[in-house]
């Protein structure tokens, strides 16, 4: 199964998105991370690295980020991971909420990391106003 890490400037936003995504796949390991150590808005590479490590035994880990510095701090966190784990982690270019929901569904279906990533990225084109 593919695990998911939700990375936002706001821990509340990350936890809220995790909650929504978790509804679509109760057994999918999802970790939320965000905010700075002293509780401000922001993202920190070391906290993100620890969050990825917390996902546990999975086939791969999909990373979803919100804005700007979250991307750079996440890239840095990935560079700091042990090689073996690093190879199973991918940062995806998806909208954070819709991407997380789609990823949870795909992961629960037992799809591979690459399949889950592509589905999450496809969420950017999802038609909301049907």
């Amino acid at each position: 199964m593919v695990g998911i890490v939700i990375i936002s400037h706001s821990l509340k936003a990350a936890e809220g998105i995790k909650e929504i995504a978790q509804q679509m796949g109760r057994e999918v390991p999802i970790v939320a991370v965000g905010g700075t150590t002293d509780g401000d808005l922001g993202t920190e590479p070391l906290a993100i690295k620890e969050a990825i490590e917390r996902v546990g035994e999975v086939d791969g880990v999909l990373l979803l980020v919100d804005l700007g510095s979250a991307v750079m701090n996440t890239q840095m966190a990935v560079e700091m991971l042990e090689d073996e784990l690093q190879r199973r982690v991918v940062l995806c270019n998806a909208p954070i909420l819709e991407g997380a929901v789609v990823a949870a569904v795909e992961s629960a279906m037992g799809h591979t990391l690459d399949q889950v990533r592509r589905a999450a990225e496809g969420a950017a084109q999802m038609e909301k106003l049907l």
Partner: protein
Amino acid sequence: MKVDRDQVVAMIKEMAAVVAQNKEYLTDLDSAIGDGDHGINMDRGLRKVLEKLPPVADKDIGTIFKNVGMGLISAVGGAAGPLYGTFFLQFGKIAAGKEELTTSDIGAMLAAGLEGIKQRGKAVVGEKTMVDALEPAVEAFAAAADAGKELLACFQAAVAAAEAGKKATIPLVAKKGRAHYLGERSIGHQDPGATSSELLLRAMLKVLES
């Protein structure tokens, strides 16, 4: 003229002091075109750096700068963390094992630091970022060094170029970071990242001049 470990430690303390003094100013600049946290973030990062300084203050200069980079990476919380963190990690690589720095060491550190920032942030000159202050500074330092100038004169040339580069960000449209969302509304505002870059270089220069 060479820079010894005590001067390096003094530079780090001076950078932290200057950022603390300019916390509101940087945050005001960032409030105009960004998310309004640059001063707060930089201050938090440099306070962390100061906290972590005593155990490494008697180590080689490379270790001291590596520690600065790691402190900023761990505590800044915004894009400035990985960017300045990379800048000082690159300083640390060039200065690894060194007890003092020559003009050519410092030129190489600045060049490597800039290259690290450009790779990490994928920015070039003209995009209203810290690169607009740092690249002219690195070039001015190299030009002065090539002309056989002393370290102090090289660093003065670098800071003058950084200041000019910082001011030149005012009419630019932001292409990177949160300011990018503002498009043309970012015109007329000085970039906070270019401003903090100039402040950091100026703080290092102050120690050389004292």
